[in-house]
Structures are given as structure tokens and as C-alpha cells.
């Protein structure tokens, strides 16, 4: 396993800018809680919120993006800019999450 991992490293570096390398990171919403509440991602990654509640929620950044997440459904956003963002639900501002976006 160890030698294989070493082989992967240069490959990963080669393709780092290509979209094929982008990941989808899931954040689950259950009983008005984002989990994990904090995620680390990079530009080009997609956050997918999976809403298990019977309630509609949003993932909203003040003066930034706003994603509607319907009940028992999911919604996605591809991260375009680097930096750390705090987001919340407009309907239930006590729901909070954080994404650290690496360049």
C-alpha cells in the first residue's frame, strides 16, 4: 500500500488544477443541524447539502451566495473563490456552518 500511495502523489499534483480532481463534499442537515458544521474544501469542489428534515433550509452567506435546500432533498454549490466563509440558514438563523476554501 505504501509504495502505491507514493505513486499517487505526483499524479495528484499534476492534475490539481483540473476539474476532474474536484471533490464533492457532503454536509447533512438533520434536525436543524449542519454536520459536519465545519468543512475544508478547495476552489472547484462542490458542497452538497443533504436535507433530511421536513423543513426547507438555506445555506446563505451574508452578502454572498444563497442556496435553497428543499425538505427531504439536496442542493449543491461549486466553490468559486478561496477564503473562509460562515454561512447560516435564512429561515432558522440559529443554524450555522463554516467552509474553509483553499485556493
Amino acid at each position, binding site marked *: 500500500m505504501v509504495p502505491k500511495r507514493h505513486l499517487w502523489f505526483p499524479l495528484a499534483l499534476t492534475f490539481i488544477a483540473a476539474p476532474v480532481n474536484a471533490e464533492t463534499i457532503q454536509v447533512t442537515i438533520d*434536525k*436543524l443541524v449542519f454536520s459536519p458544521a465545519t468543512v475544508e474544501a478547495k476552489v472547484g469542489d462542490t458542497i452538497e447539502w443533504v436535507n433530511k428534515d*421536513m*423543513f426547507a433550509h438555506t445555506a446563505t452567506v451574508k452578502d454572498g451566495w444563497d442556496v435553497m435546500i428543499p425538505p427531504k432533498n439536496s442542493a449543491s454549490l461549486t466553490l468559486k473563490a478561496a477564503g473562509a466563509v460562515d454561512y447560516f*440558514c435564512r429561515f*432558522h*438563523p*440559529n443554524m450555522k456552518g463554516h467552509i474553509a476554501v483553499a485556493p
Partner: protein
Amino acid sequence: MLTRHTAALAALLLLGTAPLAQAADKPTDPQIAHIAYTAGVIDVEAAKQALKKSKNKEVLAFAKDMVRDHEAVNKQALDLVKKLKVTPEDNATSKALTKAATEERAKLAKLKGAAFDKAYVDNEVAYHKQVDGALETLLIPSASNAELKSLLETGLKIFQGHEQHAEHVASMLK
């Protein structure tokens, strides 16, 4: 006027719950289910009044959120009581809540425009605060069924969220 109403609601809640302070008189699960359900119905009715009377975009959006969320919680509550074969039981606290809400709606019915919007949203803040308190200090600790307790805990988070949402709308009306 609002302060008086809030105080009245607080007093009513206290009156309704004061005898329940003794362990022997804790509300039963059927009573708790009734109180929680009633609290939701009241907020839906208040929202429907706002949907008819208000012209403010933020207020209308907030009222729609209230209808949607409280109907969703109450649907879950009805499903749960059916599953548990519990019949919600009317009680003094539910009656006091309904009476205070009926009076509040009559008062709001006389207001128009910005005065209505402000009174509605301010009352929403106060009302959600009251229900949060009742859920936290009385209903959740008294619930004996684990599923009912869990639904009440979700309800508390919804009510707390709405309280903050209402505060945000109130700040925009100023």
C-alpha cells in the same frame, strides 16, 4: 401595549403551568402534545392574518415561512401521536395560549400598514420567546416518551430559529 400583552401571555403561561411545578402535576404526554400542537396552530393563524393584511415583502416572506414550518412540525406531531396511539388532551395551558392568541389577533385586526407589520413581528418575537421558555423549562423535561421528547427538541430549535428570524425582520422594519 406589546409589553402588556407579553406580560399577560407570560402570566397566562405561568398560571397554566404553576400547578404543574409539583412533580405529581407534571403535564402528561397527551397534554404536552396538545400544548405543542396548539402553539403551532396559533402561529400559523397569526401568519395567515399577516398574509392577508401585510404588503411588506419581508413580512409576507416571514409569514409564509411560519406557515410552512409549523404545518410541517404539526404534521410530524400528528403522525407521532397516531403512531403512539396517544390522543392529545386539552388542558389549562392550551386554553390560556389560545385565549391570549385570539385577543392578540383581534388587536392586530384593527391595525393597518406599517403599524400592523410592526405589531405582528414584535409579537412574533415575544411569542416565540414564550414558547421557547415553555418548551425548555416545562414541556421537554416533562415528556416521558423519547420520540415525543425528540420532536419537542426539534420544535424548540425551530422556534428558536424563528425567534431570531423575527428579530431580523423587526430590525429591518425600523
